[in-house]
């Protein structure tokens, strides 16, 4: 299977736990003979690197100034860089008559590129929630938080499958964004022994459906 992973962080960039989570996932997938392309936001190390079989494409956001340090404007402008890098990867495979089977995006920060790639190329995507905006932000009814919640909501609607870390987070996601999404939310506990196999089985669900 050929997987394109979109993530806000990948080692050596570490802002939170997503970095190591995605890194483990990517390396384990490569061990299982899947082809993995990672597009990651990294303003300080743009470029391509082959990390033991994982193809890492680090892209920078050309827009450096964000009024009131708005994470929203950062995410949207950065999503454009990710999109164009992802499109280049897809065209590269197309030139060899190959296709990306599934896109896997992490957190709302990478939802926009995943959605646009889905619309442009028809590649379905999996969205992993590591947390939700309502928990991260303590004043979560401000305009900024509401905008971010809208992005999370849109991500759930557009995704083919959703992955969460725990039953509890699943319930929270369903509580905020509607119980109707229940059938496509999967729980993958990332400390379980064979959690990567569970992720692969989610990919397989999508490939079989499409």
């Amino acid at each position, binding site marked *: 299977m050929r997987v394109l992973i979109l993530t806000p962080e990948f080692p050596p960039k570490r802002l939170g736990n997503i970095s190591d989570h995605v890194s483990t996932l990517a390396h384990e997938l490569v061990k299982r003979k899947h082809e993995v392309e990672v597009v990651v936001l990294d303003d300080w190390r743009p470029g391509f690197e082959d990390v033991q079989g994982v193809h890492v494409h680090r892209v920078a956001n*050309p*827009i*450096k*100034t*964000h*009024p*009131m340090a*708005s994470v*929203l*404007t950062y995410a*949207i*402008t950065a*999503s*454009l860089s990710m*999109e*164009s890098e992802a*499109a*280049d990867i897809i*065209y590269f495979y*197309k*030139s060899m008559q190959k296709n990306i089977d599934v896109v896997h995006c992490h957190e709302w920060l990478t939802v*926009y590129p995943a*959605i*646009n*790639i889905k*619309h*442009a*190329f*028809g590649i379905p995507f999996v969205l992993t929630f590591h947390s939700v905006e309502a928990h991260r932000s303590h004043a979560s009814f*401000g*305009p*900024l938080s*509401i*905008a971010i919640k*809208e992005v999370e909501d849109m991500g759930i609607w557009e995704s083919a499958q959703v992955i969460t870390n725990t039953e509890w987070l699943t319930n929270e996601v369903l509580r905020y964004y509607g119980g109707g999404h229940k059938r496509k939310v999967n729980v993958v506990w990332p400390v379980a022994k064979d959690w990567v196999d569970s992720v692969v089985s989610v990919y397989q669900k999508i490939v079989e459906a499409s």
Partner: protein
Amino acid sequence: MRVLHLSWEFPPRIIGGIASHVFDLSRALTRRGNEVHVITCNFPGARPYENVDGVNVYRVESYAAGDSFLGWALRMQKNIERSGCDLINFINGVDLIHAHDWLSGIAGIGLKHLYRRPLVSTMHSTERGRRIGIHDDLQASIDEIESWLCQESWRIITCSYYMRDHVSTVFRVPQDRICVVQNGVDVNKFNFNLNYWEFRNRFAHGSEKILLFVGRLVPEKGLDVLIEALPIVLSSGVDAKIVAVGEGPQREEYQQMADRYGLSHKTLFLGHVDDWTLRALYRVADITIVPSKFEPFGIVALEAMAAHCPLIVSAVGGLNEIVDHENTGIKVSVNDHDALARGIIRIIRDAGFRDWIVRNAFQKCMWNYNWNNIAEWTSGVYETVLHEYYRGSWKPIF
């Protein structure tokens, strides 16, 4: 040729000058046999899909409010981009994407890479120009987006040579990537039946000459220069009255200024007026005056020329190129109210000179600022771009 235009405004949603520009340009391109699709923001009462004289207009969801103007503008553009993907898939591809200003440029950059199709963008104005410098983070961010858009565009279109130099200097774009295609005006819109005196008497006495000012009441439009020129004109024995169309934060200040000169009875602030009234005002006005201090193009000058109204402009930006001094109008230095007053007196006293500049100006309008010619020149830009594109290696499948 199949072209996708992206614009954040399209009639009936009119905020600045881009709406009418895209409206006229897309219709003129369609008349030349192109297939034009426009994606724009939704507007209360406007339909999500509409066929406007052959132009396919799609209006997509733009949010009612956002965390900030920039946040709103970016999310709105992501929606335009997403709908753009669906549209391009539905109509089986487009030849070229044309974005207008940074307010649709982000969507344009995205679609360019997703479909590997060339992007042409029109820089109607720049953030530096509008605010005369970069003063805060919001502006800096917009400035960076404009710079990015210029980098990503295959060709940039500007409306004047002044803007070409400005864009090339500010964003360090080589001049061979910038094409100048001027704005246009539809002269037929000024050709309608008008009860001249009945309409004119609403604004001034029969003996008063109407000096028309059209523009937002902001410092860069320079209405203060015109108010300072008025006492000089009056003292020479010419009876004249300023009629100012437009609204803005400086209105109070300008009214007080006229009061100080004791001229409040010789100045009339109309605020916003509807389209028809504005066009009729051009026809009854004795002189149209554009005393701007910064002007990327100056569409007011074209409208006056099309309505056979003599024109005095300050020699700045695009106005400098529209008016040939003593041939299609009078040019004065920026902030020079003495020269402005002399110009006003000269046009009013010398009827032969007045007829000469009005006739020349109208002829220039008919040729240089004709939408059919502009569409032809714009198509020329498209053809150049596609020619280069097909010879290059950056394509969907190579």
